[in-house]
């Protein structure tokens, strides 16, 4: 461990590599987490199939690439397919559990996750796939730092996509309806908002955002039918740590988590990389608990 810290001190350029890699992958974490924040905040559904939607998007991109469609060009297509899929899942399952207790909605979304995993396994087999972007990498600092073009492109795309969704939520009628429903669904309904449609749209939008994240994952990482779980865990960690409804918080936490994972992988070893988000979540929850306890004392 101390050897690795020494290494960072001896070659400060390595910090740039870890920082860049962390930010690039963190931007993709943000997308899936943003979708979860939406569904959780508006519908109070904790979607355990979040990671599976990401992987599903990745498979569609890979499949389209076999027809000669570049993965980046497939983003709008995958977005549309996943939107329709999300809407269908809402109509078939989610609408029946939305008003039920937490346990029912967790079970239902866990079931969706299992079905998606097995369907992908049936359709594409258990082999690991990657969608090739054809982009190259650039070496800096005498080869010590490598910047992959695809990571820059996917960073820009994910930030752009997140910005587009935020703008949509702020300016469009549907966005306003979603926000109103999130604040008070009963009042929104009384004011004439079709909350059922808002819920369906929100769930579909979440699936579409996850799908787009999946396209980026398939280009910079690897996809496999059973690789959804780590993406789900990261999304939950980010939303919980950032706080529900805190969109800037989701972005900062997602990017920070990406960087933290890279640093922990470097210093402690790759096997601790995925333990980092959970340890950080625990620390955040403990810190929040302390804060709340203080707040309660003041109120008393």
């Amino acid at each position, binding site marked *: 461990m101390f050897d690795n810290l020494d290494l960072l001190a001896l070659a400060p350029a390595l910090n740039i590599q870890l920082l860049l890699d962390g930010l690039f992958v963190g931007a993709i974490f943000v997308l899936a987490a943003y979708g979860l924040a939406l569904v959780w905040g508006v519908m109070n559904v904790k979607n355990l199939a979040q990671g599976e939607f990401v992987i599903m998007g990745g498979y569609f991109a890979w499949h389209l690439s076999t027809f000669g469609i570049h993965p980046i060009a497939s983003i709008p297509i995958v977005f549309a397919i996943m939107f329709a899929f999300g809407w269908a899942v809402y109509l078939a399952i989610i609408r029946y559990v939305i008003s039920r207790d937490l346990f029912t909605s967790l079970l239902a979304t866990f079931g969706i996750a299992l079905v998606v995993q097995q369907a992908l396994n049936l359709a594409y087999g258990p082999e690991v796939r990657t969608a090739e972007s054809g982009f190259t*990498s650039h*070496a800096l600092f005498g080869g*010590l730092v490598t910047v992959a073009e695809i*990571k820059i492109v996917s960073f820009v795309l994910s930030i752009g996509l997140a910005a587009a969704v935020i703008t949509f939520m702020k300016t469009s009628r549907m966005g306003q309806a979603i926000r109103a429903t999130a604040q008070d669904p009963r009042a929104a309904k009384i004011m004439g908002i079709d909350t059922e449609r808002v819920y369906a749209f929100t769930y579909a939008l979440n699936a579409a955002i996850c799908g787009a994240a999946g396209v980026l994952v398939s280009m910079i*990482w690897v996809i496999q039918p059973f690789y959804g779980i*780590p993406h789900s865990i990261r999304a939950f960690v980010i939303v919980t740590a950032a706080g529900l409804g805190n969109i800037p918080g989701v972005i900062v936490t997602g990017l920070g988590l990406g960087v933290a994972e*890279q640093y922990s*992988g470097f210093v402690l*070893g790759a096997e601790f990389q995925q333990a980092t988000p959970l340890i950080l979540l625990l620390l955040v929850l403990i810190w929040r608990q302390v804060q709340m306890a203080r707040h309660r004392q003041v109120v008393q």
Partner: protein
Amino acid sequence: MKSINTPVKAWNSIGARTFSGLVLAGAAAGMIAAGPASAKVDGDTIILGSAISLTGKYSSNGIDTQNGYDLAVKKINEMGGVKVGGKSYKLKIQYYDDESTPARTAQLLERLIEQDGVQYILGPYSSATTIAAAPVTEKYQVPMIEAEGASRALFNKGYKYLFAVLSTSEQYLASAVGLAAEIAEKNGKNPADVRVAMVFENDAFSLDVRAGVVEDMKKFGMKTVIDDKMPADLSDISATLTKVKALKPDLLVISGHNKGAVTAARQMQELQVQVPMVAMTHCEGAKIVQQFGAAADGYLCPTQWAETLSYSDGYFGSAADYDKLFKSTFEGYSNVPYQAAQASAAVIVWKEAFEAANAFETDKVRDAIAATDTETFYGPIKFSEAGNNLAKPMVLRQIQGGEYKVVAPSKYASDSLVWPREAMY
């Protein structure tokens, strides 16, 4: 109460009678089916037994194994069979389908040994089924020559009747360490100065592979500069590869099944990792060449056997001859799987053991198997005390121009090693 109990009693007595009748009939049928204990040699035929995966999840490799067994039996019989006590015997295999289920393998072996009187066993397909089979053959003190179970767990239990012709998992990347030492010496360096980076999945197979690498490194006194385990989902090892770039090891060894191999190949391409020697398992299974093209050039990939090897014997001739014969005997093979080759080698060991023992008593034959020291088209075979084959090294193939070329051990190499690795990023 009475009206209810009476019919129940009546039914019970009928049921009991029927049941005892069935037991008697079953026992009689069993006695008939069991046959004589001499079923191991029937006239001029020696009967070998095998419970193998002809259906279920291992069936494709199970059938490859069966084809390997059958081809060797056919060849040996055509060459005059097995000579014991001045008489020629033909070989024959009695098969049962274990449905790729370890519990079924164990049951069927009991049946082969107990009822069918078979005293010479050929192993099933896979480590899992072989692990289930070994206690049975050990219990009945019946020798089993297996060709498809590589797990180290098979060879640390002190089994006396288990023999494996293949290389065990800890040998998968060990030859890469030997090769690195050879290169160092050639370049006027001390092998002890070779610096090794290791990245392994945290599972039984990869940790076995790691143990082999570590053992061999100790022999040369090599230094470990990185010893990381892959993250649970095997999707991102870029932080480890960043360390690799900074520390510039002489050898990078990676094992994480197909998934780990794809992740490593992709991220090494992206980060443009320039290690002079890279060895990883599962290159072929992960289709590294097809997915990464020239970026995968120079990887060293272990395999149990290849048709380009310079091994040969008096049965099949060279490895290339075996390859030709197999393809012309069985339809639908563009590449001969090494599983078939090692299955044929197991039958050769049986043949030579019978002749060396010049007897059919299982203990005499078992001792003859234990003393095996032979060269085959599949490689040399000599068993350790634990029953694994220590003589056959794992073969390393290097990806050169998108093709797998055998480069180590040097004695059997078909092509020379490209060092340092020349990857096109």
